[in-house]
């Protein structure tokens, strides 16, 4: 698919393949393809699958960066295949491989269970047992702005699987889980910040982060992940959870 009429371009696509029913180990396979500059890497991969080699397997669904299915390593960097356009690729070779740090099931498909288990371990849900009012719980625009950034997470795992400490220690909860804990720790309506902070104070919690910033650059939703992790660390060190945004953040998020 293309939104421009410009000429196509020849791409050599190198894909790391692995079929557990046939292969002892992963190997590379190479395909030649004509691509439009406005094609997504996802389009390129699906063209390979549909017209050259139906045995290629990958996950995909929304194809525009909101569902988080097609996270993979593209030219050595984690990204969603549907958010990288051919026109932005350097050189004529496209290299695609599964994300690191999670077991490969087949081709570009990794086992997401360990990732979701980490996510589930940080109480990623609102806890508030106070009787609810008959209408909404009030929350000021400034309180709402405080955790806006971390609500954007789509659980694609680009961040966690680009994190060197996670590569070294897969028991580490990883950046995505911390972002989702942040989402509730700093929500003025929540009552379980202390419980989540205790979970993240564990040896496999937030202190595993070495502020490498890989997560921040990999995030397809532009979440300032490293900064959010630092905020959780600060809350642990100071014992203070500030649920009000500073004035810049409030201005950025206020809609009225």
């Amino acid at each position, binding site marked *: 698919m293309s*939104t421009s009429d410009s000429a196509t371009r020849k791409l050599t696509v190198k894909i790391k393949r692995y079929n557990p029913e046939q292969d002892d180990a992963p190997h590379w396979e190479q395909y030649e393809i004509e691509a439009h500059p406005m094609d997504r890497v996802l389009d390129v991969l699906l063209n390979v699958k549909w017209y050259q080699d139906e045995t290629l397997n990958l996950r995909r669904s929304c194809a525009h960066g909101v569902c988080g299915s097609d996270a993979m390593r593209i030219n050595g960097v984690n990204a969603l295949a549907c958010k990288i356009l051919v026109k932005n690729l350097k050189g004529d070779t496209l290299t695609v491989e599964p994300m690191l740090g999670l077991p490969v099931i087949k081709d570009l498909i990794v086992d997401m269970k360990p990732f979701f288990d980490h996510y589930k371990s940080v109480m990623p849900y609102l806890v508030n047992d106070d009787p609810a009012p008959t209408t909404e719980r009030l929350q000021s625009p400034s309180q709402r702005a405080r955790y806006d950034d971390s609500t954007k997470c789509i659980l694609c795992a680009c961040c966690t699987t680009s994190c060197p400490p996670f590569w070294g220690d897969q028991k580490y909860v990883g950046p995505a889980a911390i972002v989702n804990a942040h989402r509730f720790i700093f929500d003025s309506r929540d009552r379980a910040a202390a419980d989540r902070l205790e979970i993240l104070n564990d040896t496999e919690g937030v202190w595993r982060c070495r502020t490498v910033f890989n997560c921040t650059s990999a995030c397809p939703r532009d979440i300032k992940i490293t900064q959010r992790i630092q905020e959780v660390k600060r809350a642990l060190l100071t014992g203070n959870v500030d649920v009000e945004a500073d004035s810049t953040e409030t201005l950025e998020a206020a809609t009225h």
Partner: protein
Amino acid sequence: MNYHRFDSLIVGAGGAGLMAALESSKRVGTAVVSKLYPTRSHTGAAQGGIAAALANLEADSWENHAYDTIKGGDFLVDQTAAEVLCKEAVDCIYGLEHMGLPFDRTADGRISQRRFGGHTKPNPKYDPAAPAGTDAAKPRVPVMRACHSADRTGHMILQTLYQQCIKQGVTFFDEFHMLDLVMVDGECRGIVAIEIATGQLHTFHAKSVLLATGGFGRMFKVSSNAYALTGDGPAIAYRHGLPLQDMEFFQFHPTGIYRLGILLSEACRGDGGIMFNGKGERFMEKYAPNLKDLASRDVCSRSIYQEVRAGNGIDGKDYVYLDIRAETINKYGTSPTGQKVDSAWVERRLPDIIEFARTYLGVDPIKEPMPIQPTAHYAMGGLPTNLEGQLLRDAAGTVVPGLYSAGESACVSVHGANRLGTNSLVDLVVYGRRAGRAMARYAQEVEFKPLPPNPEAPTKAAIDALLSRPRTEPWVKIRDEMQRTMMDDCGVYRTGESLTRARDTIVELKERYKTLGVQDKGSVFNTGLLEVLELGCLLDLAEATVAGALARTESRGAHSREDFPDRDDARFFKHSLIYSSGENQTSVDYKDVDVIYVEKNGERVPKYPLEIRKY
């Protein structure tokens, strides 16, 4: 055989499925089967808002919302269902907020609301004697009713419901793909699903089954829908002899990204954005003098087609512009409050839209207008249900015991011939909740009934056939032809001639489909096999859609027959039911629209009298 047993089984983990799971799992043993990880579901792609008459920013009522919904649906809406939708929406929104949904807030901390197409209230300044074109001449005016979280409201709903499911310990079978229903004596007793990671078949024995599998926009060439939206639930029920309702009504959203079809929210226009043709004209003034760009989606999509046909597309091509620049909003005075806005305000309100345009169009909407065209977006039709989500097998409303549906796969019918923006999300939560409660209640009342021997046998035979046949042609050729046919011959405009052509093409494609074999013969994550099975679902639904469209010789809502341009209430003020009646054969039946009557001056009169729809 892999065997599982749950009182209540939910297929699909979008908004409707998760809402039902939360309700059902409070009462009985419940599991959710989903071919995607739940957070990948397409509810997450919904953007602009979810309507409820909270009246947080201006006066509003559920009655206003119900009237708009019925009128928006060109009066094909079941009126009791619409009133339930609009009344319960209010409670559901507060419920979502209590679950933690991060709505945007007003200055006083309440849920923020915005305008959306077709959502109105009576004009307090209305004067029937006022000269045309003046504000006082408009009987109704836009109202801020859509509760929002920037332009990622669906994402927040999906995440919040999934979070609560984790909190409540709901059982999930992620990446299990339903391939069949287990039907015995007209009752549903479970499903057969393939575990994608292993290729093994699993039988799920259940007392009640909810189909919440979403839409099927992938039958069209240009669509906002995810690859996964292949209508598995409706297609499988149709094969079991159950009817599909109002399939001829498929919504084309006016503002899809040119050629790609990616959705650009109606919130763009709710917040003041305007569509322009190649002559720089605000063409909606011609087609909808009162609401203009905030007319209903079917009206806007047809208007774009008319402009393109008249040679008024951009550079004479098949697209127009959507302009959300602050200078444009200010020039036309279309901001929600009427006050001036700046680019920073637009960026805060529509951050994802702006990013989509920058990424996929290479256009910066803060500085330039965006090329758009109508995109296949939403199925108003689907599995007929009653207010409790129970599937109905005929025009008399006979219930299919044990089988339920909610969300886009269902047709209750609150959207009639054309859905209003934001009402899909309302439908998910209101009817997902009702279905979840009803299916749990049913499961508490009845005992498990035995499964037939080898319930997975037909599925296994179908898979084995696909795996054993040689690959005759790429399956995507059949898909591409189906999508082109549906787009060109069964799209925004149809004629008897184009629909006959579409019917013949679909028959031919179904015949070719039977000879397909797959290249990948493996068991583990055989996505090629699943794509072919999904194509089979889409072909069946395309068949039903064309059959409904051929039979309805009138124009109503999203169904525009150029050979029958007028609404024909005498003949077609009724829902269609399409049945599969043998190989490549369909039969059509009709059922009455549910109408509410009230006493007025001692007379029994319709509460929502039929009117010619104008915006």
